[in-house]
């Protein structure tokens, strides 16, 4: 968006950041700092991935194409990735929304995951307690996020538990 000075992928990869930005064609894309709710939801989803026997991680730097690096909030692979940054296409990526996320930026990112070949692209909205699946350029609301061949299913009740009274 902004006419910032472009940096090279090498420069991006060599820099230590306090809170790792993403990198898209020469520009750094800031990510919102996660809140407690954001990170608690991420851990819950990772727990389910663990149970399903998947290799998983949060904020893992992935190389989608030579000029595009993204850090999905949560991602899982059928086999443990061996490259750094990760070039193996995940089975599933999950974006957990923050109030400040812009729609246009979110769609850009989801389309990139799709072009990269990620079969399951999920969007979790903690503000409205909604689950959505991105497929075929549509963002469709779902009661549960599931990958049947891995016996994996996450319902809204599991992802957004009622606060403990």
């Amino acid at each position, binding site marked *: 968006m902004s006419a910032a000075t472009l940096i090279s992928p090498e420069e991006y990869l060599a820099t230590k950041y306090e809170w790792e930005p993403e990198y898209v064609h020469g520009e750094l894309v800031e990510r919102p700092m996660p809140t407690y709710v954001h990170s608690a939801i991420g851990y819950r989803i990772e727990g389910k991935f663990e149970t399903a026997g998947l290799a998983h991680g949060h904020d893992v730097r992935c190389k989608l194409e030579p000029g595009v690096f993204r850090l999905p909030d949560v991602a899982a692979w059928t086999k443990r990735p061996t490259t750094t940054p990760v070039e193996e296409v995940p089975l599933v990526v999950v974006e957990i*929304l923050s109030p400040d*996320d*812009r729609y*246009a930026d979110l*769609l850009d990112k989801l389309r990139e995951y799709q072009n990269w070949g990620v079969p399951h692209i999920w969007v979790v909205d903690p503000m*409205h307690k909604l689950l959505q699946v991105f497929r075929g350029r549509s963002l469709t609301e779902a009661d549960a996020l599931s990958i049947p061949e891995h016996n994996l299913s996450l319902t809204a009740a599991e992802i957004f538990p009622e606060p403990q009274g």
Partner: protein
Amino acid sequence: MATATLLSVEEYLATHYEREPEYVRGELRERPMPNPDHGFTQVELGHLVRIRAPHLYVGSEIRHRVEPEVLRLPDIAIYVTRPKVRLPTEPPLAAIEILSPDEKFSELREKFAEYERWGVRYIWLVDPESRTFSIYRGGSLLAADQLEVPEHNLTITIADLFPEER
């Protein structure tokens, strides 16, 4: 979101703003300043609807009372009959939002959910930057190649709204 001082509906309606915000239960919701893409798309889409379905009425940024405490200004609204009151409470046939780069996803979906509860039959999102259409229905944003109101023989395709060469 912010814990701003709450404002009454009356106060909101009596104030003149440089760029009219929306009003949601005591809070003002700023609308992003439209960029040229937004402006051209808004006029062009309204124009296409007027030509193709001349019996329908098209309004831009008309203030509506969506709920007693929620006032919104759809970028474009399409009506079967022209609203006679200053602050319409009846839902239009269609409500269309043109996406601005700064639009927050969370606020957009809140607005669309309100339109749906209100009874708006066609809720559309037009993104001039990626040249895409989405249809909002039951919490989902479904990609579409065209915007359609079959009962009024109205169809607008992506190519109609965004011709390659202009």
